[in-house]
């Protein structure tokens, strides 16, 4: 029974020392150790969190950049294709235009030539006609001269002409 009693009886000296000692321990640690430790841990946690967030941000940015890069590449390619296409179209058009113009010119030339030819032809025909007229007049003159050499034949002719006029 005394054994148990000695176990569960608080002792004055230890109580005093415990109060003082534990008090000092709490004071020292609460003043010099715990604030530094907890603050550092919190600081490091915040730092790590920040770093992770930053890494995530950088990753996203990188992804964005690469996306942008791809987009730009695609755009440039499209532009290049467009420019090339345009150039081809322009050249084609120029070619077509040139062709059309050449055609037109050729046609115009041909027309002109035709016109000139026609003109010349007409001129020639008129000349020939005039010549023929002159010739026929000459022939007629000669014929008439020959015919009119006798009087009968002159009368006959006047009569014929008169017939022709009357009929008209």
């Amino acid at each position, binding site marked *: 029974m005394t054994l148990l009693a000695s176990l569960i009886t608080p002792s004055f000296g230890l109580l005093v020392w415990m109060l003082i*000692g534990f008090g000092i321990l709490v004071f020292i640690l609460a003043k010099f150790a715990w604030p530094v430790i907890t603050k550092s*841990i919190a600081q490091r946690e915040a730092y790590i969190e920040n770093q992770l967030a930053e890494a995530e941000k950088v990753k996203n940015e990188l992804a964005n950049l690469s996306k942008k890069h791809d987009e730009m590449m695609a755009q440039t390619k499209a532009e290049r294709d467009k420019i090339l296409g345009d150039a081809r179209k322009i050249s084609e058009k120029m070619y077509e235009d040139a062709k059309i113009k050449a055609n037109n010119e050729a046609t115009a030339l041909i027309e002109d030539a035709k016109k000139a030819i026609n003109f010349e032809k007409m001129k020639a025909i008129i000349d020939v006609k005039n010549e023929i007229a002159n010739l026929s007049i000459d022939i007629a003159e000669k014929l008439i001269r020959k015919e009119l050499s006798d009087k009968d034949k002159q009368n006959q002719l006047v009569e014929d002409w008169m017939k022709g006029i009357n009929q008209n």
Partner: protein
Amino acid sequence: MNYKKTRYTLLYLMLGIMLLFSPKFSLNAQAEEEEFDPGEYIMEHITDDYGWHITTYNEHHITVPLPVILFDGGNFVVFSSGKFHQGQQAYKGYALGFTEDTDGSIVKLGGNYADYTGELNYEEACPPIDHVCKYDVSITKNVCALLVSIILLCWIFLSVAKKYKEGPLKAPKGLQSFLEPIILFIRDEVVIPSIGEDKYQKYFPYLLTLFFFILVNNLMGLIPIFPGGANLTGNITVTAVLAIITFFITNISANKHYWKDIFNSPGVPWWLKFPIPLMPLVEFIGVFTKPFVLMIRLFANITAGHIIVLGFLSLIFIFGAMSPAIGYAVSPVSVFFYIFMGLLELLVAFIQAYVFTLLSAIYIGMATEEPHHEELAN
């Protein structure tokens, strides 16, 4: 290969321990003249003492003498506990208590012995006792262990704090990396869930100190040689002081809501409160039983652990006293159980530190808890 090596090392270690504890080795001198008393042996290890007994070799007690400090008759008396010679001698009229009532304390002798220094012979001429020294603030074994643990804790955490100061963003190293997960565990799993994110910082230093104080002293109690081996956290005074501090912190920081819940508990039928205030009474007693249970739990767990471990060791001596052969036969079993219990105690050391801190945090949390919104609405 490595595994095999470890196994052999373990085997040799066990043999060595067995040899150390074998009855022939250590009990040679004692067994012949005095019977081995396991009760006394165990009590000697778990109770406080004025000197720190290390071992007995060839009938010589090897003891670290510790200072005796008495406040007696209006002035301080300081002398070495070695002067008592294990209770064989008196010094300036002071002697170790020798009757059943005064066992374990220092008495002032009366009559002719009032200023006596020298041998005491209790059988032939029992000296009269004037009074028991009530105000005894001697550096006893437990006080010594307390001081050692305080110095150890200060050294550990100040050096760790210095490391944090040097590079708060560096990865923890050495002791720091061992302690940091524990500190984080206390913060994230014990203190914040119990008290709450917004209020925990005020109580965190105390709870951390509490946890590490209990842990370090539990562990030191498991070390069988000199600076360890004192049963500090298994001492009711120590656990009482810790529980009282928690009690005061809880009740000083308690808010209106807490007291209202105690004297007018919500959700309890009115006839339990009036005319006989049964529930309020139970709740009010609970204010005191909570720290009381804290005190008893730690004290009982640690003391019981020590008693069991020492009991297993005592088996060797008990059987060895019957016959050395039986002692040898029993010692492997005892050592096995001793190691098993030692490992269990290691676990208990952590668990009890954790439980004490957790419950303290929960009590503080209960006292500072703000009323819930639903309750406000009601």
